[in-house]
């Protein structure tokens, strides 16, 4: 589903689901309010890369996925939770590769009639994503102290 081209009157059993797994910056994606007249709530969750990982100051995390299974699992979760919470549409984008601190690793947008359904959807989607979807943080890139006149050096730390 293109968030901007949200269908105005989708059938009850055809909730739009848009799942994307990308190497590109999620910040470069645009989004627009839904024009579905049934929608009374549109919520957005962004998971950002924090500057701390396992007590260490970092500059980025690297993500890896088992792509076909990750996509299928993200979609199945979305379909199940849309139906359970009677939400109207969802868009999920997960970024892979190196994601710098402060940038978005995951974006979820959910449209529903009322805010409660959307909040429940977001909570359960993220809880299940964290246990079911085959995506991994594989490396943390630590912040290195600056050494004058030293050549550029990249070091990564494998995550358990």
């Amino acid at each position: 589903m293109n968030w901007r081209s949200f269908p105005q009157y989708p059938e009850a059993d055809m909730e739009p689901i848009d799942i994307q797994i990308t190497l590109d910056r999620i910040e470069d994606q645009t989004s627009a309010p839904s024009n579905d007249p049934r929608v009374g709530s549109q919520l957005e969750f962004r998971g950002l890369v924090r500057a701390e990982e396992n007590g260490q100051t970092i500059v980025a995390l690297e993500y890896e996925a088992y792509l076909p299974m990750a996509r299928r699992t993200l979609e199945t979760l979305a379909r199940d939770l849309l139906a359970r919470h009677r939400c109207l549409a969802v868009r999920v984008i997960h970024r892979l590769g190196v994601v710098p601190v402060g940038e978005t690793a995951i974006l979820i947008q959910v449209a529903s009639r009322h805010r409660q359904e959307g909040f429940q959807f977001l909570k359960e989607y993220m809880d299940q994503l964290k246990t079911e979807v085959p995506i991994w943080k594989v490396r943390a890139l630590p912040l290195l102290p600056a050494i004058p006149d030293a050549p550029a050096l990249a070091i990564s730390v494998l995550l358990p």
Partner: protein
Amino acid sequence: MRVLLFAHLKELTGQEHLDIPSTGPLTVEGFWTRLLDLCPALASQRPHVRLARNWQYAQPGDRFEPTDELALIPPVSGG
């Protein structure tokens, strides 16, 4: 039967996948026996990984066919 490896399992084995020579269907236990014969380094990981078969988590009673795509799924950490 191809077995895909991800995250630290690739570092542990130095491989992105392993190929199990198989003459027929394998039970979950039979699969692990064949896999650990091929790559004993994975024995310590068995309690921590889940098996996926053709993009879905496998069930204890599953039988794996030679044409199935298997994957070892270590604890996930997306989001």
